[in-house]
Structures are given as structure tokens and as C-alpha cells.
């Protein structure tokens, strides 16, 4: 009961402060004054906090807020429930309104005559691709596929090692190894949560714009993503076989080799093939930010507004991605 009370007060406080921020900065400045809100001052922060406390106090005493409703909806009077409901609805409306302003939504622009004409021209050009640059585009495409392949191959060995070192059931027997496990988990999760596009930006500053930066970016992401998949697979092996190998007096290395490896070979293979397929798709996008290959070529033609050439490249990418998708699915089916 005590904890419920704290949660209710917290909910009311947060909704109160949130509503105050939106009302002041979006409704007041944007709508009424028609200007960008100035930078936040400390006094404003205090005011927002006070608003939150006010609502929390209201919930605690009058019991007509979301928090009061959350604690015990059935004990509220009808008018209290109505009031809480309106607060919720008001917040929803305010949130969508804010989103509209922040995103600068302007539906009319979708239908402006000029816009429609440009879009029509573009789509027309895309559908009449310029075939004369086919050889250039193919060469760039081959580069993209090889970038993806290299990222997969280079990322594979470290990912294999990490797959075992980041598996709880392999590392939990000893304090030292368990610490290694914890640290590796954190690093892997961090590397995985940074999008490959951002890695590409980082590496293009580091080693210069080009295919190498793209490959490095995807290698990092491949290592992290595969290590995560591998370690989860290792953690889900049948512990019975592990125990049986342990019972023969085998060395820990032998326990892994005879107790775990036979159980994970096929899933590992499937994950790796899937990763290569994903990497090809990713490599086309990474080219857009300077990672080389077909994406970079696409950006060049787009910058020159040569839409027929862009059309060819887009069709080529679609075809290759589709073929890779199909091939990888068939391969994985075969080994399953």
C-alpha cells in the first residue's frame, strides 16, 4: 500500500510538470506568441517542479488525478473518476499537438502542384533507368558485396571467441571469469546499441571516407551482434551433456569442445549466413554516409540530380537484396 502511494505521487508529479512544460513552451510561445521559446532558466525549472508538486498534492487531498485513479479506481466518486479521465485525455491531446508542431507536419505540402510535379518527374525517371552506367553500377555493387563479406569474415573469429566468453553458463564457475563475463556483456551491448551508421561516421573520421571505413563500421557491429546471438545460443544448450562430459574428469576446454560445441554448430552457421545477408543490405546504406560501394555512387548521382541513373542504382540494389534474401533463406533451410 505504501509503495502504491509513492508511485501515485510520482505519477502525478511527473504528469503535472510535463503538462506545465508543454503548456508554457509549446502552447504559450509557439501558438500564442508565435516565436521560438527562449533557453530554459532556473526559475522556469522551479516553476515546472512546483506545478508537478501541486498536481501531486491535488491527487493526495482531493483524489481527482491519474495517480489517485491508479491506486484504487473503485473507491473514487464518479466526479473524481471523471476528473482523472479528463486529465488523461488532456495530456494525450497536448502530446499529439506538441508532436505536430515539433515535427513541423504540413500535409498540404504533400499535395502542392509543384511538389506533385517534381515527385512525378522523379518517379518517372526512376522507372526509366539509365542503362549506360550499368557497368559502373555493377562494379560498385560488387564492391558493396565484398565490403559486406569482409566485415562478416573479419568479424567472425572475434565473435566466436566472445560468444563463449560472454555466456553465463561457461563463465559463472569462477569469480574472475564471471567478472570478465560482466565486462564483456556491457561492451557488447554498448557496441550493439550504436547503429552501424554512427560507427561509419566515426570510422570515416578515423581512417578517412571510403570502403574501408564502411567495412570497419560493419565489422564492429557484426562482432557485437553475432557475439550476442552466439552467447545466447551457448547459454541455452542442454546442461545434461555438459554435466556428463564434466563427470568424465575432462578439462574445462574439453567440456566446452565436447559438451557445448556440438550443440551450437548448426545454429552458429545459420546466424552467420543471416548476418552476411544483413550486412549486404547494411552496406548499401552505409555507402550513403561515405562508406564506399553502391551507396556512395547513389549519393553522387543524387547530388547531380541525375534521376535516371539513380533509378538504375535503386533497381540494382533491390534486385541484389532480394537475391541475397532468397539465397540466405534457402541456405539456412538446408542446414536446419
Amino acid at each position: 500500500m505504501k509503495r502504491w502511494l509513492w508511485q501515485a505521487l510520482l505519477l502525478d508529479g511527473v504528469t503535472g510538470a510535463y503538462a506545465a512544460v508543454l503548456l508554457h513552451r509549446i502552447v504559450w510561445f509557439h501558438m500564442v506568441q508565435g516565436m521560438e521559446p527562449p533557453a530554459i532558466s532556473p526559475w522556469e525549472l522551479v516553476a515546472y517542479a512546483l506545478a508537478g508538486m501541486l498536481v501531486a498534492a491535488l491527487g493526495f487531498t482531493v483524489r481527482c488525478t491519474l495517480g489517485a485513479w491508479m491506486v484504487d479506481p473503485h473507491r473514487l466518486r464518479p466526479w473524481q473518476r471523471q476528473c482523472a479521465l479528463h486529465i488523461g485525455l488532456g495530456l494525450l491531446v497536448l502530446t499529439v499537438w506538441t508532436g505536430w508542431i515539433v515535427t513541423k507536419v504540413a500535409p498540404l505540402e504533400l499535395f502542392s502542384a509543384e511538389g506533385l510535379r517534381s515527385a512525378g518527374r522523379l518517379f518517372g525517371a526512376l522507372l526509366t533507368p539509365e542503362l549506360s552506367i550499368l557497368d559502373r553500377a555493377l562494379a560498385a555493387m560488387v564492391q558493396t558485396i565484398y565490403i559486406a563479406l569482409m566485415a562478416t569474415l573479419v568479424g567472425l573469429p572475434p565473435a566466436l571467441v566472445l560468444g563463449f566468453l560472454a555466456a553465463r553458463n561457461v563463465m559463472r564457475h569462477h569469480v574472475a571469469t564471471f567478472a570478465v563475463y560482466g565486462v564483456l556483456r556491457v561492451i557488447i551491448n554498448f557496441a550493439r546499441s550504436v547503429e552501424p551508421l554512427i560507427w561509419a561516421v566515426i570510422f570515416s573520421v578515423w581512417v578517412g571516407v571510403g570502403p574501408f571505413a564502411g567495412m570497419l563500421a560493419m565489422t564492429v557491429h557484426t562482432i557485437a551482434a553475432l557475439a550476442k546471438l552466439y552467447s545466447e545460443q551457448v547459454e541455452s544448450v542442454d546442461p545434461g551433456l555438459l554435466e556428463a562430459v564434466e563427470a568424465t574428469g575432462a578439462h574445462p576446454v574439453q567440456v566446452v569442445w565436447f559438451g557445448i560445441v556440438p550443440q551450437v554448430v548448426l545454429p552458429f552457421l545459420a546466424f552467420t549466413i543471416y548476418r552476411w545477408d544483413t550486412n549486404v543490405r547494411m552496406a548499401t546504406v552505409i555507402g550513403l554516409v561515405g562508406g564506399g560501394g553502391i551507396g556512395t555512387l547513389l549519393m553522387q548521382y543524387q547530388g547531380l540530380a541525375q534521376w535516371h541513373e539513380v533509378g538504375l542504382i535503386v533497381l540494382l540494389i533491390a534486385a541484389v537484396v532480394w537475391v541475397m534474401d532468397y539465397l540466405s533463406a534457402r541456405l539456412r533451410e538446408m542446414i536446419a
Partner: protein
Amino acid sequence: MALFELREVTKVFPNGVVALERVSLRVERGEFLAVIGLSGSGKSTLLRCLNRLVEPSAGQVLFEGADVTHLRGRALRQYRCGIGMIFQHFNLIERRTVLENVLVGSLGRVAVWRSLLGTFPEELVEEALRNLEVVGLAEKAFDRVRMLSGGQKQRVAIARALMQRPHALLADEPVASLDPATAHSVMRYLEEVNQRFGMTVVCSLHFLSLVRRYARRVVALRAGRVVFEGCPDEITDEWFRHIYGEEAQEVEIR
């Protein structure tokens, strides 16, 4: 001197479950000892204390009079190597051949790098084939384990355990997932190993009929404590109800 001796062994798992409570027990060399008790009474934990897959929380485990309670590292591996174990669910590498599985039993005696390369010494391969003959599976040596029946798999597991040239064999409900006829055939191999090689066997069982037929001595556990110790035919109806609880249906377990 007893082969194994447990002195007041208690095992408390990290989650607080007391699986064994002050269990004292002697296992004589060459005997066939059955361990019975309800599910969760601690049979598996008891067997795992004997080959130190489980480390007791308190008390002592003695092997040939030597204290093995807190062995670690190499010494622990050497100790485990001298005791074979078979399991209810066989725990074999399904996708590998019968021979490869039997050779797993020799891991404790092979250099790590050799075993990783899969180049087991010729004499070990011959020994593995001889052990397969003991369990009547010589002609299956190069078949994949996946293709075998349950009874055959358990015999492969016995051959794997024999590969350790063990002083004793621990069997944790070895026939619980087999039909009655197959169960007897597997139990007969354990009996043969016990009688022909004089190997000590400690076997947890669910069916009293099997206990009466194969064991010479029985230990019964209830909630982690030893509640009965004696010959199989000393288990009267009264003892039976004491071990398995008032509601237990004798027919099912007999």
C-alpha cells in the same frame, strides 16, 4: 575400508533448498547399492556428491579413506575420472558417432590438444571398441547416436563410463525413460559389470521391483534425510509408506 563414505553431508543450494541434510552413508567396495525416494528427495544430489559434481555445504566425502570434499582443479578432475556416471537422459552427443561418444569417456586421460584435434591414440580406440563389445554394440560403432533406440543409447553411455576405467559406476535413474523390457536389459548390463569386473555400482531407481531384482542393499531418502538402510526385502509395507508417504500407491512403484 569403505570405498565411499559420507559423513554428515549437508547440501544447501544457493536458492536455499536443503537437498541433503546430515546424510551419513558407507558404500562398500564391489556392492550394488540402490538409492530410492520420492522425486526431489535428493537422490541425484547424493550421487553427485559422490563424484563431486556437487560440493557439499557441510560434512565430509571420503574416497578410500581420503578426504575429497573440497578438491579443486586438476585433483578434482582426476578424482572424477575414476568414477563413471550414467544419466536418465543418456546425455550423449546426438550428432556424433557411437565411437566418438565412447571416447569422450577417456578425456580425463588424453592430452587436451589431442582430444581437440580428434586424434585419439590407437589403443584408446581399441579399448573403446572392446567396451562397446561389453555392452553388445560393437557393430554400431560408426552409426550416429541419433539413430539408436533409448536402450541402445543408455548402453553407449555405459560404455562411455567404462572408458574411464572407473572404480565405481554411478547411475542416476538409468532406466526411468525406458520401457520395462528395455529397462531390464540395461539393468542386466549394470549387473554384469558389477559381477564380472567387481565394480561398485550406486544406482538411483524408481521401481521397487527393479530394486528387489538387482540391488543387494538399499538406502531410502526422504526430504534429504536417510530414512531407511538395509536389504531390499526388509522394505515392508510400513517402511514403504514411511518412505513414499501415506498416499503412495504401491502397485505403481512396485
